[in-house]
């Protein structure tokens, strides 16, 4: 529905950088610093927007096109994933595999961008990103498949609706295991500790930042903003699958012509508030992780990501022998 599309779209597009600001503020406070204001990301974006872009003379037209592509992918994902309501704003387009695929598309373009500048930092960031995401994929897809198999659909709206209908009974053993696996994966996808440090610019510790290093001006603004949007997307997927409570749902009784009745405006407002709370909680959680955990050595990452895959596999096995 149009109202949902406009509502979710405008709120997320306007509010995504805020969560990054909150996370940074929390980290600073935990480190006994005053820290920047929560609105700092907006100021950063505006600063970059106003500056001239510089590109390497080894680069190709891809450097100009990539930020636009990455941003478009993330905006599309934001508009597809159910956050405020159980339904996706673009009804019928919320297939979880498609959204995961869009994240992969963004990653692919980003790694190619990293290649394009011809610098070693880009190669470093890109190579690590590719290897880590390969390890992340099985855990991610398996964790979501547990929920999909239980709900009988890969559409996030259907999974979400079923979760809401089940209530607290949703969190059975297989689902909890899958949620744990997805949580680890989410840390990897959003680039937080202990897998990546979002604030560092040291050569050997960058993954995501490494790929963005050579971007400047509006391009950097687009890419950073796309990173903020990605955080919202990943958290939304988690919430829609594992904690769908509070999202605006269509009326329980279908209307006179058999079609489902759209959620009432009150339900939508409640959905917005609940979504904001969920996102804030997630932001605080990630902030705590960033402040509390050191970044892991890259050699040790396979064991952590392997743990996520193992949890997901256990969830799969459990779902076949335990009711979910």
């Amino acid at each position: 529905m149009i109202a949902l599309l406009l509502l979710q779209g405008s709120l997320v597009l306007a509010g995504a950088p805020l969560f990054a600001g909150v996370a940074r503020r929390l980290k600073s406070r935990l480190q006994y610093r005053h820290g920047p204001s929560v609105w700092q990301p907006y100021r950063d974006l505006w600063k970059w927007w106003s500056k001239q872009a510089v590109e390497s003379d080894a680069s190709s037209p891809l450097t100009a096109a990539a930020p636009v592509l990455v941003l478009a992918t993330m905006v599309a994902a934001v508009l597809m994933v159910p956050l405020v309501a159980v339904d996706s704003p673009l009804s019928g387009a919320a297939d979880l595999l498609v959204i995961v695929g869009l994240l992969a598309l963004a990653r692919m373009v980003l790694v190619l961008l990293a290649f394009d500048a011809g610098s070693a930092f880009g190669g470093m960031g890109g190579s690590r990103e590719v290897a880590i995401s390969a390890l992340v994929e099985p855990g991610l897809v398996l964790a979501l498949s547990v929920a999909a198999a239980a709900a009988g659909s890969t559409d996030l709206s259907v999974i979400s609706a079923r979760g809401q209908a089940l209530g607290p009974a949703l969190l059975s053993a297989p689902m909890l295991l899958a949620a744990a696996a997805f949580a680890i994966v989410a840390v990897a996808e959003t680039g937080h500790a202990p897998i990546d440090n979002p604030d560092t610019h040291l050569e050997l510790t960058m993954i995501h930042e490494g790929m963005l290093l050579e971007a400047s001006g509006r391009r950097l603004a687009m890419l950073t903003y796309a990173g903020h949007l990605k955080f919202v997307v990943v958290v939304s997927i988690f919430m829609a699958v594992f904690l769908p409570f509070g999202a605006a749902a269509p009326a329980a009784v279908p209307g006179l012509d058999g079609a489902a009745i759209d959620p009432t405006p009150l339900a939508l407002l409640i959905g917005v508030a609940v979504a904001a709370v969920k996102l804030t909680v997630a932001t605080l959680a990630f902030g705590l992780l960033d402040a509390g955990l050191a970044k892991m050595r890259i050699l040790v990452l396979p064991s952590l990501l392997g743990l996520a895959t193992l949890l997901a596999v256990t969830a799969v096995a459990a779902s076949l022998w335990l009711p979910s």
Partner: protein
Amino acid sequence: MNGPGMDVSLTVALGFLALSAAVSLLGPRAGKTALALAALGSVALAVVGGLAAFKEPVALHFGTILGSLSVDLRYDALAAPFLIALGVVGTAASIYAMGHHDGMRSRLDGVAYPAFLASLGLLFGADTAFAFLLAWEAMALSSAALVFGPRPGPTTVRAGYVYLALTHLAAACLVAAFALLGGAAGHADFAAMREAAQALDPAARDVVFLLLLVGFATKAGIVPLHIWLPRAHPEAPSHVSALMSGVMVKAGIFGVLRVVIGILGPGPAWWALAVIVLGAGSAVLGALYALVERDLKRLLAFSTIENVGIIFLGLGVGLLGATVNAPALTTLGLAAALVHTLNHAAFKGLLFLAAGSIQSATGTRDLDKLGGLVRAMPGTALLFGVGAVALAGVPPFSGFAGEWLIFQSLLTAGAATAVDPVIRIACLLAVGALALSVGLALGAIVKASGSAFLALPRSPRAGAALEVGRLERAAAALLAFVTLGAGLFAGPIRALAGAIVEASSRSTGATLGGSAPVLLGSYEPIVVASLLALIVVAAWAIGRWRAAPVRRAPTWACGIAPTAAHEYTATSFDKPARLFFEPILRPVRARRVEFEPGTPFPHRVTYRSNVDHLVESRLYVPLHRASIAFAQVARRLQQGTLQLYVAYTVVALVILLVAARP
């Protein structure tokens, strides 16, 4: 009405191909004409495929040799996607070869190439065991001739021999299987074998299944029977590699569909489990070895192994559906396999053609020596990019469409309560394997595209590259259009595949699939593509509105003027992956530093790193050594005396005579 259409098109196709072979015998000058005729023949083959998809199947009788070996053809709906793939890729490959200097290296090439196309075309319509095996052998021999070429070097000779050895292993298994089936039936035609196969006892059916599986898996390139693929594909000329990867390995898939599912019929659940396990293994290992490969064509060959594994996953689900008698599941699995077959043929053909352009422009396939080609070869770069996004399995492109369907089929199988829990877990684990292989494949193709085209050239030859001719780009562009179309129109293609499975099951009487596939989710590529396009345009516009002009400057390299030595090479790019997957890859690294005499300053550093291909070192090398040892022992029978050998024969004869006395 239906019959004459297909009859005529087939005759036209074979006529063009025969003409092409004849013309090529006139000499090297006639090469272009011969290839143009081959292109026309391929178009005609695609037409046959198109007719087969929509019309009722028609039997064509080509003749009988020696009274009992008959060559019967019957093009039904199942042959359609394979014929269309053959036609499209064949046309593009022939046009590419017209512009390429390696297009026709000798008269043998000129005869072998149309023979290759013709044998594939006949294989997809074979209706008797003899016709099938004849086409199979012709396909193997003609492609081997193309791999060897006129003046093969030692690597090429080795590759060709490994290829021939394995393809004959496959043929031996197929002959044995057909003999068992035909013996039970009394006739060698598929209809009779289908009926007789129902009456075979379970042990015999298991044996036949294993023989067929080994035979077809070898041709398809499934691990562990894959070792010929990464050797033979790079040695063949690019247009032949495109056909081999795009269509010939699909002959193995076609064999499974036609013979295992179509003739042998449903079997115990372990059949499906075996296929799924083989598919998952090939998918992961193929993608992993592709990621750490630095020869561009070998990388693409390993990617073919990965994609064939993915197709096998769909075939496994189809077999599973036949076992538990769930036609919807069967249709879903087989339709998924068909869709991915078609899509892979298009984008892999495209990538091989583009790789061939890179090789002819720079003279090398080594990714560590390429770079910066996007400036010299923008057309090829764009075409390679289309193939790359398709291979990476990202929406809204064609690779994702096939892989999405396979995901759906595996999830459906995993959720089906009629299936044994162990197999359901296997299906869901296969989902994880599929996800892993897609992630690794994305890394592999990003590495290939980035190293080849972006940043600065890493060698003088790459720096001096020039764009290839129009014909080569046009051929690749044809496949690029098909790839993009297959991505955007995935919905109709999916419906068509489902219809083909249904039509094929109706016409052959085999229980293939009954109803339309029921999907667990929805994927409308046009919606996704339009959404993306809209936002891209909007973002682009906003990004350019009153923006300051972009400044170009050298990359910051800590104060040094940046050179190609500052970039990551392809080998360095896969280093984290080599670290993560060390237990499987077992990388070997040797580094030697030579110092200037009497000083601690290095004069030369030699670095060699390699990945151990486990299947070869743990399976084939020991087998090889064991057979050589056995041959050494058996040598003692060879005394060198002619008369002794005759004596061996006589002794054997006498023993037989004594033993055969009633």
